[in-house]
């Protein structure tokens, strides 16, 4: 398993990583990127099991990255959870239309993250 955490805040990436570590995900499953552009390069070069992506980031934001991934056959089935401060319903709808598998509003809680990950990984085609 490889989980790619994309957020321009290093502290937020660490919070997500530490939350997952407390859910017994091993340290060596995590990869990190500070924006959508770096994330895209990683996704093109490596097999990623799950993408956790922020919305508001410089260079290539999370929504743009999701649209770019879903437009590419290789990434159409990649489980993607958007983790963002954007709490308005119209934002959730926009992200779902762009192709996210699920949506989690910051601040991140252990319970919230665990539920979302379980849900999207269970929905994966076998």
């Amino acid at each position, binding site marked *: 398993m490889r989980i790619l955490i994309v957020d*321009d*805040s*290093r*502290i*937020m990436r*660490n*919070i997500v990583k530490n939350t997952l570590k407390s859910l017994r995900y091993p340290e060596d499953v995590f990869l990190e990127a500070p924006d959508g552009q770096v994330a895209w390069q990683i996704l093109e070069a490596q097999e990623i099991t799950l993408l956790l992506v922020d919305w*508001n*980031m*410089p260079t290539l934001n999370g929504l743009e990255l999701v649209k770019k991934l879903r437009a590419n056959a290789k990434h159409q089935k990649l489980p993607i959870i958007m983790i*963002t*401060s*954007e*709490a*308005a*319903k*119209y*934002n959730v709808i926009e992200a779902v239309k762009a192709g996210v598998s699920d949506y989690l*509003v*910051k*601040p991140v*809680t252990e319970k919230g993250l665990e539920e979302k990950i379980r849900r999207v990984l269970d929905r994966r085609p076998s």
Partner: protein
Amino acid sequence: MNIRYITPFIEAVEGAFDQMFQLQPQALTPYLVKKEEILDWDISGIIGIAGEARGLVVLSFPADLAQELTAVLTGQAKDTMDEDVTDTVGELVNIIAGNAKKGLEEFRLLISLPSIVQGHHHQVTWPSGPVPIITIPFSTSRGHFSLSVGLENIITT
């Protein structure tokens, strides 16, 4: 003062501080400030708002509280205003502005990436025009901070 549109920001502050720091900030009486006011704080995180309203959301702290909150998130004691502190303040104002949008859904709003202003007695450049700026002071068991909001069409007196 239109309290209806202040409440989403107060609730966003309370929710963020409770979940991230296990702190229960108490909102004190909001007041109007002038655009040119010099802030009696050491660091401010600023989010620009665009879309159906234009303005700023500004979250301001004294250095010691900003460092203490950063220490909670990083697990490391802080005594300087390093990159972790600016990251924490930027992410906090981002979470507060983004979460407040939930209570303002009749307006379609876009939020910018956060920017940071540092230095004791710093000043924030507010957008031009007659938009009232409301400051909400908050008190916590670890110290005081404030949230200032100026949004045309939304914050009115």
